């Protein structure tokens, strides 16, 4: 169309003779212009590309801030358990942080995954529709509770809940020969321990795992369920034969997402865990969960106010933050890969 046909033709319309005879409304349309599209596309693509660049920028800035401290570090960053950044040369390492972060997240996962699968099965396979919706909403609300509230509640309320001390005693009595469950002197109850932090973390990641599992379970092919029912299967047999195999990769990827969140969780852990002195860290490695410690996140949150004005101390914290970033990146990447493989199947 060299000249778009917007000439004002008088409407002579045999179909509707009562129409007014004057230039049609269509003739008032603005001529098409590419400007709007160009501006809109330019804007949205620029913002999108900047988003992608931001990831690199974050990484570069963290590295840049960490380098001075790392070069001044007299100890091995990966194997040292103590953390001393008050005077040059620095002596710090993330070994203790890695252990506390990993063990608390893994125990949280061990508690949360079976429960989350149970809840998701309850919502999708068992509960009548009228009950399933509200239950799902309540579990989602659990995810909405800010983590600092869980920290407050965990340290003040749950930490003084006698039942957990009972569980602790039983675990020590039965499994105390395993180093992880070994009783530690001067930690006589669950208050401030990794064990307590793990339980609270489990509560916090339960909704994520439930939500992802629920989504995949709802998509179990109807015909597979019906085929099992037609064979005379009970509800549990339907779940075992049709629902669980179908949703396995979804459950795993949901669990990995939960793990990613547990690793990076800050305030809940900071408020619950009690620190272990540098003296104790220097002595023998104590893998027990019935003791305190610091995760990456809680270490940063706790030490930050003091490191504020000292670039070296700050750099040491940034270095540990960077390690956390890298670890969560790989955990989340694994979750995505598993989820995508599940979709392809």
């Amino acid at each position, binding site marked *: 169309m060299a000249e778009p046909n917007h000439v004002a033709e008088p409407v002579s319309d045999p179909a509707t003779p009562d129409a007014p005879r004057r230039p049609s409304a269509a003739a008032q349309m603005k001529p098409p212009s590419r400007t709007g599209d160009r501006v809109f596309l330019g804007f949205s693509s620029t913002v999108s590309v900047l988003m*992608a660049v931001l990831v690199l920028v974050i990484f570069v800035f963290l590295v840049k801030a960490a380098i001075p401290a790392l070069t001044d570090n007299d100890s091995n960053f990966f194997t040292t358990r103590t953390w001393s950044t008050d005077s040059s040369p620095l002596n710090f390492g993330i070994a203790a942080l890695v252990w506390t972060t990993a063990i608390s997240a893994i125990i949280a996962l061990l508690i949360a995954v079976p429960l989350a699968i149970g*809840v998701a099965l309850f919502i999708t396979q068992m509960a009548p529709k009228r009950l399933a919706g509200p239950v799902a909403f309540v579990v989602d609300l659990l995810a909405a509770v800010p983590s600092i509230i869980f920290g407050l509640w965990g340290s003040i309320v749950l930490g003084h809940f006698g039942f957990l001390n009972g569980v602790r005693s039983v675990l020590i009595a039965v499994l105390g020969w395993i180093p992880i469950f070994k009783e530690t002197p001067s930690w006589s109850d669950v208050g401030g321990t990794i064990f307590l932090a793990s339980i609270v973390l489990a509560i916090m990641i339960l909704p994520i795992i439930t939500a992802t599992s629920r989504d995949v379970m709802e998509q179990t092919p109807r015909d597979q369920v019906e085929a099992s029912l037609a064979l005379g299967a009970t509800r549990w047999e339907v779940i075992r034969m049709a629902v669980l195999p179908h949703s396995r990769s979804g459950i795993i990827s949901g669990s990995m997402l939960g793990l990613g969140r547990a690793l990076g969780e800050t305030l809940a852990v900071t408020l619950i865990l009690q620190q272990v002195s540098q003296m104790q860290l220097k002595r023998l490695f104590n893998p027990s969960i019935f003791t305190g410690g610091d995760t990456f996140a809680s270490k940063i949150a706790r030490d930050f106010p003091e490191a504020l004005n000292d670039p070296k101390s700050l750099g040491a914290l940034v270095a540990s933050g960077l390690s956390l970033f890298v670890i969560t990146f790989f955990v989340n990447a694994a979750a995505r890969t598993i989820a995508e493989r599940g979709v392809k199947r």
Partner: protein
Amino acid sequence: MTSTSTTSPAADAVEHELDLTRPSGSRTARNGCASAFMVFATLLAVIPLVWVLWSAISKGIGSLLSASWWTSAMDSADQAKWGALHAIVGTIEIGVITSVISIPIALLTAIYLVEYARGKKIARVISFAVDVLTGVPSIVAALFIFALVVTTLGGHQSAWAASLALVILMVPTVLRSTEEMLKLVPDSLREASFALGIPKWKTIVSVVLPTSISGIITGIVLGLARVMGETAPLIVLLQFNQYFTVNPNTPTFATLPTIISNAYTQGSADTPTVWGAALTLIILVMGLNIIAKAISRRYLRRMGK
């Protein structure tokens, strides 16, 4: 659920007769155990929520019921007259600043990914970057902003800086939910609009977005609820303030979560003020969640689901 005798061992005894009773004992028992576990897991999942709410209400309601809670800051010599007005205003202010920055970024990127770059290589690159951002721990986002604003640019702690860190956390969540909502809009609507000679950007703004608007708002409200309860960036990028201020450029700025974290550093956490702040924060965040739920329910009804 039961079927003919062929699946049941009991059939061997009674030949040629239909057995419509329950399946054999062990199968029923296993089914029962599984069902019991599901109910048990669900109850166990609901307990913490009820318990947390109960703790916050029973220990914090007293503070909320006094008028000074809503009208004054924590500047009085008499602790009984302390209020959280400054922190409530601060939390909402940071939420608003964060939203105002995050929403356009998230919407534009989602629009670009769904409407312009679908199936292209660049979409995969950006999508990957968004995935990485989604997994950034909040404390790491806070450290990044500190390294950028304070260490590199020579700025200082402020509510602006805290909001920027929260933007890093809010953008990916809003972006992902918006993306999902835009993908739900059928292509036939876009085609109908193009066929009317409506330019693409107008199609997006006037046809695609209005169709998915309540779903997008749901995502925004949920994202906002998440960042309002987020504390780690606030302790890194702000210092606590007992006094009332709305100036986002000062280093001392109060929020509800930092009332709690500050009390911890002072060593007195189990106080009515702390629990009052917790309860107020819960009301704020859960309120947003319930609003989001209501909006999304209306939306799903309209999309015929």
